[in-house]
């Protein structure tokens, strides 16, 4: 029996004002999959990602139709706080709070009501270890997080997300500002998290999608053009537009 998908969208349409950004997107993502999402700029990749944890709703003009299911349950029935706790996101540019390294990771547990100092310390250490940052920062947890390098900051963001124990982690072009070595470290962290989390990776870098993801989706002008096993999608795309994109004829 096929297990229930962790995330499923049914006829998802997204609008900013009167502009339709996503057109009837249907995707089902099973547990512990890394799904890559590729496509040129303005294809709706980020909007799709941010629809999943309702961050789009921070924009006044945003509206959507269709359904998004998390573990079979319509996310409309889940409160913002709980939904965003379950579905974490890593932004394109490493975004850290102007507090210490420790403070950044401890923020999530704090707002979710964990006050015991020992527990928080344990959660922070655990999260930093799973984001493969612990060894680099364990001696300077109280230093400002902004002093870390870009790659370290991005892994700090991953640790911060892990600290609230999400089920799903969304990555919005997480390596767009990083050098190749930092990129490799972030990708490493993603692969090692694979067993426990469902991960969705939006990327402009088709090579990154092919390195990390098992399945890959190609978005174009708000449409989901094609979705399939990454290897098949890259070597033998069914749709001509996908072929054009990955062979570099446009985008």
């Amino acid at each position, binding site marked *: 029996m096929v297990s229930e998908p962790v995330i499923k969208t049914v006829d998802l349409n997204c609008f900013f004002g009167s502009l339709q950004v996503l057109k009837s997107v249907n995707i089902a993502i099973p547990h512990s999959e890394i799904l890559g999402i590729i496509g040129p700029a303005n294809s709706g990749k980020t909007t799709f990602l941010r629809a999943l944890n309702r*961050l789009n709703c921070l924009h006044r003009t945003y509206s959507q139709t269709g359904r998004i299911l998390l573990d079979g349950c319509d996310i409309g029935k889940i409160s*913002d706080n709980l939904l965003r706790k379950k579905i*974490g996101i890593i932004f394109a540019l490493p975004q850290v*709070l*102007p507090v210490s390294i420790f*403070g950044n990771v401890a*923020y999530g547990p704090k*707002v979710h009501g964990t006050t015991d100092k020992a527990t928080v310390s344990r959660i922070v250490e655990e999260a930093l270890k799973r984001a493969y940052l612990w060894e680099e920062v364990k001696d300077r947890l109280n230093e*400002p997080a902004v002093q870390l390098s870009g790659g370290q900051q991005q892994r700090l963001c991953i640790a911060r997300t892990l600290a*609230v124990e999400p089920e799903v982690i969304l990555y919005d072009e997480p390596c767009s500002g990083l050098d190749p070595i930092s990129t490799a470290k972030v990708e490493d962290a993603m692969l090692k998290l694979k067993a426990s989390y469902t991960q969705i990776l939006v990327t402009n870098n088709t090579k990154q999608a092919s390195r990390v993801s098992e399945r890959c989706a190609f978005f174009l002008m708000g449409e989901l053009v094609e979705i399939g096993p990454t290897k098949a999608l890259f070597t033998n795309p069914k749709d001509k537009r996908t072929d054009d994109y990955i062979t570099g004829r446009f985008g």
Partner: protein
Amino acid sequence: MNGAKIRQHIAFSVLGVLTLLIVVPIMLVILYIVINGAGAISWEFLTAAPRNGMKAGGILPAIVGTVLLVIGTMLFSLPLGVLSAIYLVEYASDDLFTRMIKLSVVNLSGIPSIVYGLFGFTLFVLLLHLGTSILAGSLTLAIMSLPVIITASKEALESVPFSYREISLSLGATRWQTVRYCVLPYAIPGVLTGTVLSLSRAAGETAPILFTVAAFYLPRLPRSVFDQVMALPYHLYVISTQVPNIPLELSFATALVLIALVFLMNLVSIILRAHYRKKRLW
């Protein structure tokens, strides 16, 4: 030297001279007051009540009155102003109603202070039966200070990067937690600046307290918030223009005390600001 360098030189010189044009008159005013008033400052002047039809004695009741009025004003206007600003920036949707509120706030800061005085007199003194009292005066000054506090707090809140809010919300924090932990701490320096500016103005205002609290001559300390008090700016006005044959030195000394008081407030805010800036880890 090439043209661009010369132009830069000229620009810097012009800007420097313009800055001096602002700083020098202020320094001269302060210097003038200090030279003319310092001689009259004594322990008695600061700690005794006026005697002899204000020609002798001190100005303690007026100092206490002004301090009480500033504290009272702050108690009302600071929480109200900051909370309104938080509502306007973080919660209110950008509709016609909100825009009208914002426009009103801006316009309110341009209203002459005597109008606030009359408004406070009608509302607090007469309608709410508070009488001419510290309470009525503080409330009037608070209403006058609100627009500046709201505007400054609003700008301080808006200058906090949107990404902080996004991070916090994306981790599942509520709006209030986001404001409390990720926005407000970084807006406090700006809020303080606005508040102190506004309170400094309140401390020096005469018109709003004229009908609502100020006593012409009351050589004792107030007993409750429903008591009248003397206040430094009004006292200064009285001894300079209303009572004949008062040594000019006393006026200057009174002005000096008022300026020192305002300066002290600014000093406290500078220290607080530095303290909060340190909290932000860069």
